């Protein structure tokens, strides 16, 4: 969606777009505080107890980390292509992102399954409790991101080029969804470092 297309839709639409991005930004602020609270609990619980026992996490989680980081990059490429009005390229990169997202979810399920098979569940040790709760909570937020990207995907497939209304409808969920997705990718990197290197 190029600048000329936006301006055709008038100041109200531009304000609406700003509001939606602002709303997502504020929401991400509260999510940051949520994971900040868990992080401080992780530090306190870990440093004040005798029963802390670090669990061994499957090494393919690092591969999964790479998957979500690459998905973030591909989504950014999709967003930029959409912004430039190149919807074919946007569609390809968005499709790539969705495939990578599913791959990440698959990896996540496999990690839980792997731990389960090793006899490690939520209450096994404080470290496993934090691992399951934090990754689970991250996955819940990721589902919201996936829903937004799904909407974006459906709209990108039906977008009519040079129709500002249709272009905006396709671009908006992609752009707002990208904020969430980039945030969650960065959050994942933070979580995996905390849960492995500071276990």
């Amino acid at each position: 969606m190029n600048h000329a297309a936006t301006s055709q839709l008038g100041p109200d639409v531009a304000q609406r777009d700003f509001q939606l991005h602002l709303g997502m930004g504020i929401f991400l602020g509260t999510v940051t505080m949520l994971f900040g609270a868990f992080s401080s609990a992780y530090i306190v619980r870990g440093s004040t107890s005798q029963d802390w026992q670090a669990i061994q996490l499957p090494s393919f989680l690092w591969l999964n980390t790479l998957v979500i980081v690459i998905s973030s990059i591909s989504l950014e490429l999709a967003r930029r292509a959409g912004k430039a009005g190149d919807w074919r390229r946007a569609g390809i990169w968005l499709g790539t992102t969705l495939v990578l997202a599913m791959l990440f979810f698959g990896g996540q399920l496999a990690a839980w399954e792997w731990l389960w098979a090793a006899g490690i569940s939520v209450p096994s040790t404080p470290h496993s409790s934090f691992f399951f709760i934090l990754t689970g909570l991250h996955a819940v937020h990721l589902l919201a991101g996936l829903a937004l990207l799904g909407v974006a995907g459906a709209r990108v497939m039906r977008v009519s080029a040079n129709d500002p209304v249709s272009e905006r409808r396709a671009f908006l969920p992609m752009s707002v969804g990208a904020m969430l997705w980039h945030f969650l990718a960065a959050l994942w990197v933070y979580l995996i470092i905390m849960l492995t290197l500071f276990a």
Partner: protein
Amino acid sequence: MSEPQSFLRKYIFSLDHKIIGIQYIVTGFAMAIVGGLLSLLIRLQLGWPTVMWPILETLMPNAYQSGVMAPEFYLAAVTMHGTIMAFFFISYVLVSGFGNYLVPLQVGAKDMAFPLLNMLSYWIGLVSALVMIMAFFVEGGAAAAGWTAYPPLSALPGAVPGSGLGQSVWLLSMALFIVSFTMTSLNVVATVFSMRAKGMSMMRMPMTVWSFFIASVMGLLAFPALTAGAIMLLFDRHAGTAFFLPAGLIIGGNLVEVGGGSPLLWQHLFWFLGHPEVYVLILPALGINFDILAAFTRKPIFGYRIAVWSLILSGFLGMIVWGHHMFVSGMSPFSGEYFSLSTLLITIPMAVVGVCMLGSLWGGRLKMATPGLFALGLISMFGTGGFGGLFLGNATADIQLHDTYFVVGHFHLMIGGVTVFGTFAAIYFWFPKMFGRLMNETLGRVHFWITTIGYYLIFLTQHFVGLQGAPRRYYAFGSYEYLEQTATSNEFISIAAMVVGAAQAMFIFNFVWSMFRGKVTDTNPWRATTLEWSLPSPPPHGNFATPPVVHRWPYEYSPDGGENDFAGQQVDGGNVPVTA
């Protein structure tokens, strides 16, 4: 935007911020009736612990055995009174209710930034309130671990009857409340950032809007800590984890197998929310008070800029002082020192706000109707309550006073006095805007005087009962010889509480009666300056027919101006009484 025509879409599932605001206000008052009745039951018990109440036994057979309140019910009553009053009365009426009603009107917007989210916020909020009430009817009764839900009492389902299903229901309700409150806060912040009318710079915003804005930012940053705590507590209760359960706990003679956790961790997480929550509630009352004072003194408020910055500073400091609720938890004396110093630092911006309010009276032409009286009462509560805070903020004094009635008296003057007086002032002030009618002035004045005098009789006396060593949350004091001296005071407090309770019934009668029979008034009965007073009462759907343009700050009053002693923010031109 087109106005929906069906009754359901217009008044029930409304997207209009004004209807949603009123829905929140009505829901909040309904909850206040429950919370208020609980406080009367608590006072009956503390005032006359050995008297039998057969009628109450008939009404509540589980709570009253042989006509006397069961100790378990007493714990549930104090827990639910605190929870309901802080989260479901003041948060709903003052913050979500008036925040919704006033913010778009006062910044000159047609609605909130996200109306659908706003409607969802209300409905989730209503479900949350109903779930909280439901807790009374589950097996074991409502939660009984205090409004702070300290573990292990709240973490072990078998600890006391209320620690069973009642506590789980409490946590579920709080989770829904946080979702609802986050949605409202997000809307307020987004609306202030993106929907201010042309000319409405940040430094032309009324204090009311500033205070809702700061409170909302604080809510967004502070509430997630309780969300995290609540999730971990639910896992401790139902999934066998041990975030908060300490090692070596013995319940009913049996060793609890799970352990190793830290109950103090919950206290930190709870108070990281709990203390800012106090500011989330108090700041809007202060902001509203400035605007009401200006209308009743007919002069600009004193020190607008410094008051705004003081609210921001006190909001910031309010986020980093939570440990002062935990001075007796065995924390390091260095931490205690830090929390004491930072707490006492808040007195600086708060004293500035108080001085600005007093300065706003100076040289004014006081014309007192009920809203103005409540605004004055608020200043008084703020001063007296704040004075008690000086003692409690200091670790040395707090270790002596902690968990006594001194604390109960203090916070009822602040979070139960300043906020309630702010709520009443706001109701009497904006009622004509909501319904086009005035509330009855005589009933309003009687309500004010009984409430003010009653509040002081109850809560100042509680300070002294606390100084005599009476601990809070005790079911009866009869077994302790040193507390026999408090029996007369407790009886006195209970009688005063009944009278204040009766005055609130009068207020509710006045509210409902005035909706239909109150004196019809014009669009601006208080001759006030903010944008909502330029609109019809009630304002139409979409608020402004054409987007308003703001030409001046909201305090353009002149005490010597005679009939034309004010200019609304939307008034253009230089031929108006300019005062600042």
